[in-house]
């Protein structure tokens, strides 16, 4: 009774532009979303899946215009609900590659609950959070990820909320794949996003995205040639956590806390923390590291593929139900346990 079409034609060799729709892209000049779109089209083209098997799903916002620009199936839904719609799509057809792309307001403010529940269920979808720390589409109010004290149209004296740490929140919700990347770092984006798409479970990827109009430069501390090496640390599974322009700094554990140390002068690489993607506690530590106190972690922070996805369990349970109820028909259901006949 499934409805998806199968296709015997061999998989075409795609170019990224095959994934570009005929719609004119309408972001502001200089918007970080352009780079992400490029990155997604590139990664999709070489994923080894057919164009028609992708569904991109978004909420509302600048970032949420994303699906219109992908020459795949797509849904531009309503504000905050993309993870819920994606859940329905994936349950109805688990063969599809489902990717949610939306903004920080959409996925963390109005949509925070759906994001959290999609994560905890471990739906096999990829969530791309384009975090520009602002409401772009509605012209620049602070968002749940805005820096404390941020002055915006709705907070002339500075915002009072303590910002959400998206990675921390995702971990708190039990996420099994967490990564962070940068709009302009195409290489890292490609690596991380491809892994996210392939991850069988809910992959949550935060993208530091520049809003050229309302929040230009928020990420300059982490995105510029000179700031990036100093203020971010690139994580690689099994490798020590070293950073700095001269790769001369590292991270070390001190009791239940992390500290930044200078290499050399008695401190050696051996003392440093070694990245272990599979360690949830380490993931918590890393997620809590924020600028300016710490370099911010980039790359795959946590990946635990050993947990089945919800859709996998869902499918198994359907099989189980079919086994248990072998031979039970709709007629049986209509009849039920107790019937009687009225004679003519």
């Amino acid at each position, binding site marked *: *009774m*499934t*409805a*998806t*079409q199968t*296709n015997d*034609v061999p998989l075409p060799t795609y170019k990224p532009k095959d994934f570009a*729709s*005929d*719609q004119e892209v309408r972001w502001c000049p200089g918007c970080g979303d352009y780079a992400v779109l490029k990155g997604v089209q590139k990664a999709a083209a070489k994923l080894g899946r057919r*164009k*028609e098997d992708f*569904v991109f*799903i978004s909420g*509302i916002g600048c970032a949420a215009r994303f*699906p*219109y620009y*992908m020459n*795949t*199936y*797509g*849904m*531009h*839904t*309503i504000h905050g*609900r993309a993870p*819920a*719609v*994606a*859940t*329905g*799509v*994936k*349950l*109805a*057809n688990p*063969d*599809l590659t489902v990717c949610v792309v939306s903004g920080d307001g959409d996925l963390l403010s109005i949509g925070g*609950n*759906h994001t959290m*529940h999609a994560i905890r269920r471990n739906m096999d979808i990829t969530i791309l959070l384009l975090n520009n720390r602002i409401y772009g589409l509605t012209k620049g109010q602070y968002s749940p990820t805005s820096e404390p004290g941020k002055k915006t149209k709705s907070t002339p004296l500075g915002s009072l909320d303590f910002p959400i740490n998206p990675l921390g929140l995702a971990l708190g919700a039990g996420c099994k794949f967490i990564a962070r990347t940068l709009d302009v770092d195409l290489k890292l984006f490609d690596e991380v996003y491809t892994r996210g798409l392939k991850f069988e479970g809910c992959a949550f990827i935060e993208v530091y995205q520049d809003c050229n109009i309302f929040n230009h430069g928020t990420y300059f501390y982490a995105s510029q040639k000179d700031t990036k090496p100093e203020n971010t640390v690139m994580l690689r599974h099994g490798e020590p956590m070293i950073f700095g322009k001269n790769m001369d700094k590292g991270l070390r554990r001190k009791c239940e806390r992390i500290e930044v140390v200078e290499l050399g002068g008695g401190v050696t690489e051996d003392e440093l923390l070694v990245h272990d993607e599979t360690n949830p506690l380490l993931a918590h530590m890393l997620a809590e590291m924020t600028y300016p106190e710490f370099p911010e972690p980039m790359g795959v922070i946590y990946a635990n593929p050993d947990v089945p996805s919800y859709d996998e369990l869902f499918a198994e*349970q*359907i099989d189980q*139900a*079919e086994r248990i*109820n*072998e031979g*039970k*028909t*709709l*007629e049986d*259901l*209509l*009849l039920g346990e*107790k*019937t*009687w*006949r*009225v*004679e003519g």
Partner: protein
Amino acid sequence: MTTTHETHQPEPTEIDSVVIRFCGDSGDGMQLAGGQFAATSAILGNDIATFPDFPAEIRAPRGTTFGVSGFQLQFSSTDINTPGDMVNALIAMNPAGLKVNIDDVVAGGIVIANADEFTEVNLRKCGYPEGYNPLEDAKLASQYQIVGVPMSRLTREALEGADMTVKEIDRCRNMFALGIAYWLFDRDLGPTIDHINEYYGRIKNRPEVAEANVKALKAGYYFGENAELFPARYHVSPAKLEPGVYRQISGNQAVVKALATVANKSGVNLLYASYPITPASDILHDLSGLKHLGVRTFQAEDEIAAICAAVGASFAGQIGVTGTSGPGLALKTEALGMAIIYELPLIVIDVQRAGPSTGMPTKTEQADLFQALWGRPGESPCLVLAARSPADCFDTTLEAARLSIKHMCPAVVLSDGYIANGAEPWKIPDLSEIEPIEVSFAKPGDNGEVFMGYKRDPETLARPWALPGTPGLEHRIGSLEKQDLTGNVSYDPMNHEKMVKIRAEKVQRAAADIGPTPIRGSESGETLLLGWGSTYGAIATATDRLRGMGKDVSSAHIRHIAPLPPDLGDILARFDRVIIPEINMGQLLTLIRARYLVDAKGINHIRGRAFKVDDLVRSVLDIIESKE
């Protein structure tokens, strides 16, 4: 099988119909006893209608009036449509039950009470004044046939020596009471004994409990036979129902069966995404066991997620369905608007309850009609259908799904707490006679050709249903206004007006499939009672009664509210006076007056329960006579 009854008792008096009500504490098993009486009566061939009525609390404190649980049943040898207004026989397991229900008993009616529970403490707990015991009240005794039976003691005695705790033994009192009722109304014990053995014996694997219950049931029956407390017995013969195989069905069950039938008849799996809420939760419960019939269920984190998941499923090629009650429908508003602009099939079941806000969750009302029709920002029309009775929930749901798929338009199905929980006999349909639901997914596209996601079928105005996974049909839908044909985003003024009108017209096109509206009574005349939804039973019965009184009153009951039946305007015009009884402040009334400019009058009782036929008859007479 029409079962015939065999005991060696003096012949019972033959009567047409009886209304019996079981009442007691929530923990007293009244729903079970009532349900068994109903099932047995149905099997004996009576027409039946039931009305379970329980408190909002899970286990309200014992002995309080607000903790009383009731189950009312009318069984009859003629066609009936309601569980009845007044009670002929009341079984009260405690003083609180008696207190809450005694006023509903007809003068001269039978009242059987568990005398053991009428202790000083219990009488006070439910608010009787000190020193007063209704079982000893001479005035009551003159009004009713009150019989106190020491049921607790008799049950314990009957089960002496059983390998059960006292608490477990006491739980069998409901079977003792049921036994008395079975004797009094000449019912067969067989079906209940079968049920007990099946449930306790086999499923729960507690044969000792099964045995005790059967014993208590029989003890009650024999008590009736021997005690000579009752002046007479009564028998209600089988009703002349249409030939066929029957079962009992509640509204929620009927929705479940209908949805499974939709999956079967469309050949497309169905996803029911929902969030629990009284009185709709049972639909989720029952559907969750039907994965082998192409039904999938998803309990979402809230109602918004539920409808969104259903919309996602529809986009991906399943039939998305969500179900809820008023407060949940409120939350689904925005996403329903999305489904409307997406133009995807979607079925929203709303089992109405008394509002506003959380209101009275376990009570019934018809006050979500406005919300279903008009409760969305922007011009967002969708199909709205309403079921009239428990069994009709089957046909209405099936019809809603058929129209929703045919026109690629969301449909709201209105049920309510009264029919959702109430039951009636249902003639099980022959599946081969139910027409298939045609689904045609769009065919893979030609390479290079741009897919027109909003090109329409000229007759139904449906747009194509194009599934992800289909090569060549890649397209994006969105909640922004869409360009005609392409479905691309459009801010063009005239395009917007066109699309607004097309969406409205699409709903109207569904009217083509609506058959003529049947009229009860005469095709034209003085007064027409127009109704929708669960008032059907009361209105039909009132119509018959009024006609019996020589009044020129007819009635019509509509299932389709958006669109309205095409013949409705004509029908209304054929009557001098239109009266619309509703369990709300006049919602259909507003629609009808606006649409047809008829000076229809409302009869509006908003009491959390179905119309009493008597009240309705009186209200109709008031209107008729004030004008005569």
